[in-house]
């Protein structure tokens, strides 16, 4: 019998709050995390708004700020979220002599984490100076000169996507397996799923898992705007994220970090920590179709869902609630609906399937883990989060998306779905912990 894996801690830094309970209260009230972008001047971009983390102060969560002073924005969120999760799980942080009884060689890290932003002023400034307008070429000699003078070693190094994992390793003293993956919008669901596998395979007893990302920077916004993936409803940011609605026009770029502590049941029992939920299934697949589009039948999503059910030893009849990827793009919401219908057959219209992105925005690499936290809370409180801004139902999309109001109901087993650019599909199933 394989080891059972449970969740023993959670932490979040996101547009709807800097801790789990604040996020959950906001979701229950249907609040929106969107507003006009303030991190840089986006007033002339096709999308002028985003879902930013505001008024964040890392020193509220950790003491040794100096050690992390150069870290990028997403990494700073990760440290705050990890500190919260570790405290809840009773994992000592910021100490060389932990007293929590956890063997550091058995403590791992698995993040779905994104790259850090370039320093915009410096980066674009260097290009401006190195561009030879007359010859229409880059002057590499000039580039080297201005880049060496303007760029900082630490700033450059901290852009690497493995840095959030490095910072959390210093925070926790972890010496077990450390992984960081980046499978676009599915990254942190993948990280959580593979973290579970590390414990199942006996490679670790506890894994600090989740995601961290901030793409609210000029190149990130440029990239998504050029892909026409973002909502351009600039007159109404708060109602712009409207998954499954007929008037949906794209997702809202968000940022943040969500961390969950995954632990073997035997370790959690030995340590006597509170168990928040059990992780029971993981499925991963690829569409192998196009880098831009999902396969029109949703075949990759279907396979990930089916494989996750099989891994959990369940059938579609056992799922109480589906936390959808639900991005609010025309394509995703329609194909995800198709995939749910294919997997859930006669139950498809009766299983509540909502999108937290309607309130939270799309945290990209951190999205899946943030949404998984809401799944744990849904089980805890027996209440399903709503899909807000769902006032113009799309006649083609006819599932129960839990429009606008949370719903009190028995929630024991939840499927969390994440799909990423390039056809990355990852699905995790959790359930209420019972002895």
């Amino acid at each position, binding site marked *: 019998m394989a080891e059972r894996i449970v969740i023993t801690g959670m932490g979040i830094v996101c547009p709807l709050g800097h801790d789990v309970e604040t996020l959950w209260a906001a979701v229950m009230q249907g609040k929106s995390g969107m507003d006009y972008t303030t991190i840089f001047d986006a007033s002339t971009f096709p999308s002028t708004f985003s879902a930013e983390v505001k008024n964040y102060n890392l020193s509220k969560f950790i003491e040794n700020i100096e050690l992390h002073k150069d870290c990028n924005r997403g990494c700073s969120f990760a440290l705050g979220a990890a500190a919260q999760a570790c405290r809840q799980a009773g994992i000592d942080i910021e100490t060389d002599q932990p007293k929590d009884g956890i063997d550091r060689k058995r403590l791992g890290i698995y993040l779905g984490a994104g790259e850090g932003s370039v320093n915009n002023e410096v980066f674009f400034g260097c290009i401006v100076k190195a561009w030879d307008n007359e010859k229409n070429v880059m002057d590499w000699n000039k580039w080297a000169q201005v880049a060496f003078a303007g760029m900082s070693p630490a700033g450059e190094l901290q852009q690497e996507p493995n840095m959030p994992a490095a910072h959390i390793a210093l925070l926790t003293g972890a*010496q077990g397996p450390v992984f960081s993956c980046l499978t676009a919008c599915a990254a942190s669901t993948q990280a959580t799923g593979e973290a579970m596998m590390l414990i199942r395979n006996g490679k670790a007893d506890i894994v600090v898992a989740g995601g961290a990302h901030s793409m609210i920077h000029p190149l990130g916004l440029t990239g998504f705007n050029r892909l026409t993936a973002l909502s351009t409803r600039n007159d109404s940011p708060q109602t712009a994220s409207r998954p499954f609605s007929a008037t949906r026009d794209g997702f809202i770029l968000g940022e943040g970090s969500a961390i969950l502590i995954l632990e073997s049941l035997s370790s959690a029992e030995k340590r006597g920590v509170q168990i928040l939920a059990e992780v029971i299934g993981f499925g991963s697949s690829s569409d192998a179709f196009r880098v831009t589009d999902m396969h029109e039948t949703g075949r990759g999503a279907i396979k990930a869902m089916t494989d996750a059910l099989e891994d959990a030893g369940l059938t579609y009849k056992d799922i109480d609630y589906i936390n959808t990827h639900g991005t609010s793009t025309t394509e995703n919401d329609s194909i995800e609906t198709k995939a749910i219908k294919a997997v859930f057959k006669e139950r498809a219209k009766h299983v509540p399937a909502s999108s937290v992105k309607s309130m939270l925005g799309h945290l990209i690499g951190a999205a899946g883990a943030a949404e998984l936290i809401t799944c744990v809370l849904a089980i805890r409180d027996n209440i399903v989060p709503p899909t807000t801004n769902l006032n113009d139902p799309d006649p083609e999309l006819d599932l129960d998306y839990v429009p606008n109001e949370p719903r009190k109901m028995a929630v024991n087993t939840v499927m969390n779905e994440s799909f990423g650019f390039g056809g990355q599909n990852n699905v995790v199933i959790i359930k209420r912990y019972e002895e």
Partner: protein
Amino acid sequence: MNTSAAVITGLGAVSPLGLTSIEMFSALKAGRCGIGKITAFDPVGFNCKIAGQCPDFKVGQFLPKTYRKAAKLMSRDIALAVVAAYEAVANSGLVTKAIDPEKVNVDPARIGINLGAGLISCDLVELAPAVAQSITEGKFDIRKWGKVGLELVTPLWLLKYLPNMLACHIGIIHDIQGPSNTITCAEASALLAIAEACSFIQRGACDIVLAGGAEAKVNPIVMIRQCLTGRATTEGNDSPETACRPFDADAAGSVFGEAAGIITIENREHAEKRGAKIYAEIAGTGQSNSPNKAFEHIEPDGRGIAIAIENALKDADIKPEDLDLLIPHGTAIPADDLAEAKAIEKVLGDAINDVPVWPTKSMLSNTGAAGGALDVIAAAFAVTEGIIPASKNCVKKADGCNLNIVTGPIEKEIKYALCCSYTYGGQTAAVILKKMD
């Protein structure tokens, strides 16, 4: 759980030593060096002017006709990976959609992919004209960019730079519908990806996985980064062949390069049933980390490397003295080489004098997320052929390095070979190959 179910049935490499894995190993045996003066851009203003660059190739040759127009969506990192993946598949005898759509002999749902990828740098030549249109009074103007510059950026621009696009393009080309992951742990990525690929096989998620890594570091952004952090040597510009000197007393920093290394990992029963050539078994994997508060280095005692190797030995159920070959990470950055040497010495104990250690970056350069995969491919050849080529540029070992660096070629039976990697940021990994009985 051990990894005895996973075997290597195909090899693919694009490296500074050639466009195929066989060319690479032949060149390594001949002691050739793939490092030379940078030609990808004019490096005159850089204090490191050398790199490991791959021979010219056209990615279109490795794409099915129906997919050739996708070549323009491929950054250099993606193109390298696509070419190496093609060889790894062809070499394994598997017939995917790309090899021959009429004779496909694999179930797309039962193939997965797991690649290490780097932080892909954007093409400044492509971006600059848009930036040039967004200037007010000599300075970059973000408002002008939002209105004018942005429109000049090609619509699918972002998709060239998402690290998971290496695996996605390969997945589309070969019709890979199983699990897919992209590990972004810099220079430790490929070995971590290979370890996780074995876990795909063990848990029955698929029968075949393409695994490895690719990265193109010969780029004006990456080279600035490596020079700024002081990781690139500035002393070998006039003598590229002897510039990268892992574990040598005169080591002065690393030389960076570009490459892709991809192997076909297969469930042993699956491979035997179809009569595939098996290069080696993946007998064990281990991971840990060695964080340093300075981030660009690892812990001075390399503790995380030692733990990763110990875990891999335990996973393979062998003792240090059972190793017949060890390929270290060996970047030629003195502080990190010393940390790694100490860690290896700690694990090997008395076997330190007997286990041959063969660093490869002196010939292949430091190819970031691809490095570990190139080493596994070299180890697979070494195990198959019973040959350890001579190392290069380690003339006099650095103080404190007690490794048994291979001086001349060795011909002997190699039953177990270990590759290890670490990276700035601290992640560490080790993989053990075992010769087939």
